[in-house]
């Protein structure tokens, strides 16, 4: 814990990350960044981050959702609060847990990999080589990965949430069409405009953080010192978890406080 705390509370490191985040966000949003080469990097990154794990992750999310919906439905029935069970499920599972779970999953699988890759590039001097060759490593290597990670997180979240909605309908109403009106009413009640906007914003922030923070901390590795790689990767992961938790807590505070 002291080790993690050391990573979290290093002021200069955070400042570097923020500066990098500013540059990267501007670059991600500017269309001139996307040349055929960067698009190829982005496509590859999406393939690794989203497509490869799509089936496994969807199954996992479905299982997780099913168990959670069953628990909520059974408990609510026991306490005579069935009328609130579906709303609770939508608010907790679809709006909070699945995006968080997706962000953590992608962070573990791809964030760590991206961080290690960048740290190794830094140690091997490839980033300096690129800069010397006149190519911006930010635009050529980092921004496509960041954009791809954001797209992947959004995609996985959307698909898992849609699946969770279907599962919730199936658990609460079975396969009968007669629950559709009530289901629609509750969905309409839960997903009003601010909630939808907040949901999209949260997904976007999760996606950006998942790639941005590991890259920024990966750059902290020192050239020619392979031993600094694990340190940089670990620091990146700890900061990433911290930032994901912070985004989640802030979104909850804005929504409910």
């Amino acid at each position, binding site marked *: 814990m002291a080790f993690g705390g050391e990573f979290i509370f290093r002021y200069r490191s955070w400042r570097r990350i923020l500066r990098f985040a500013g540059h990267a966000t501007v670059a991600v949003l500017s269309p001139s960044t996307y040349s055929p080469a960067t698009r190829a990097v982005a*496509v590859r990154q999406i*393939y690794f981050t989203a*497509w490869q794990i799509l089936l496994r992750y969807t199954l996992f999310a479905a299982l997780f959702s099913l168990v959670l919906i069953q628990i909520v439905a059974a408990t609510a029935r026991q306490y005579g609060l069935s009328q609130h069970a579906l709303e609770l499920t939508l608010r907790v599972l679809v709006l909070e847990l699945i995006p968080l779970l997706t962000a953590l999953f992608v962070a573990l699988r791809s964030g760590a990999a991206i961080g290690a890759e960048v740290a190794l590039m830094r140690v091997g001097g490839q980033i300096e080589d*690129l800069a010397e060759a006149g190519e911006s490593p930010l635009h050529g290597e980092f921004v496509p990965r960041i954009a791809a990670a954001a*797209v992947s997180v959004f*995609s996985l979240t959307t*698909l898992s949430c849609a699946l969770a909605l279907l599962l919730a309908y199936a658990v609460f109403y079975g396969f009968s069409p007669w629950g559709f009106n009530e289901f629609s*009413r509750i969905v309409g*009640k839960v997903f*009003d405009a601010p909630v939808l906007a907040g949901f999209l914003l949260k997904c976007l922030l999760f996606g950006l953080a998942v790639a941005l923070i590991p890259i920024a901390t990966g750059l902290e590795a020192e050239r020619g010192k392979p031993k600094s790689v694990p340190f940089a990767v670990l620091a990146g992961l700890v900061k990433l978890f911290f930032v994901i938790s912070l985004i989640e807590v802030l979104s909850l505070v804005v929504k409910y406080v």
Partner: protein
Amino acid sequence: MEPEPGFTLLPKSLGVKVGMLIAFTITIAAAFVLYVLFARGVFEATQRLTLLADNAEGVSLGMDLTFSGFPIGRVRRIALREDGKVRIDIDVPNKEAHWLRATSVFTLELPLVGGAKIRAYTANLKDTPLADGAERPVLRGDTAEEIPRMVASLRAVLENVDQITGSGSSLQESLKSARTVTERMAGKYGVLGGMLGGEDNARKVIASIDRANALLASLNGVALKMDTVLSKADQRVLGPGGVVDETQKAVAQAQAILGEVRERLKTVDEILANAQAASASARSATANVAAATTDLAALRAEVEASLRKIASLIDEINRKWPFERGTKIKLP
């Protein structure tokens, strides 16, 4: 950047797959947004209903207006008016608006558990439909507000009950006396003991009843004796040789005597006539006077004797018939 070993294993259709994934995601997201818009009633024509309340506590945006438990409208806006009343604007889809009529009543209830509920009640579904933009007052029922009031009155009731049931209370006393009474009733003399307040009194009453029974028995004997006495008296008075019989005989005798008296009086008449004739011829014949007066003296003696007999007869009757003191026998 040199290709790395992992990248050489990339499939050819990488772009297609990623494109499919992104397209699929966008389709799902767009469909979901459309579904949410549909669920929120954006594509539905609605009519506006405004409810006026004193207090909007518990009312939130998106809350349902229910009719018979079914949601038929949704709160769109809550605002405080200039006069301090609360405006609750509700959108009712046109296809549900037929449940609301001009005479519908709206209530806002705050239950103890769960959120507030706005309900509509329509007594007559054939009334004129509620107009678009109608303003209606909402009746408010707040369980939480009712509870302190209920507790206060309940406490008064409980105090009363406490007073009633406390030791030394009149109810306790009544129950105690009821128990004594029932105990006495269950005792030797039963209900009588319970009513009279003790075995001694009950015993006295029973003794009195016994005595009264004995008295009745002796009265019965007396009555029987009276019967025989009466029958005897009857015999004496009315039977053969009884008082009545004798009286009848005496009356017959009296009649015979009276007949005799009448005969005698006839002779007296004749004598008087003779006397008249004699007196008429007195101037001439005074010698007969002496003879006549001797006749008169004898006659008088006879009449007196007869009268005495009648007097004694009447006395006799009076003696034998003592019940009619005032009876008089009139002589002619």
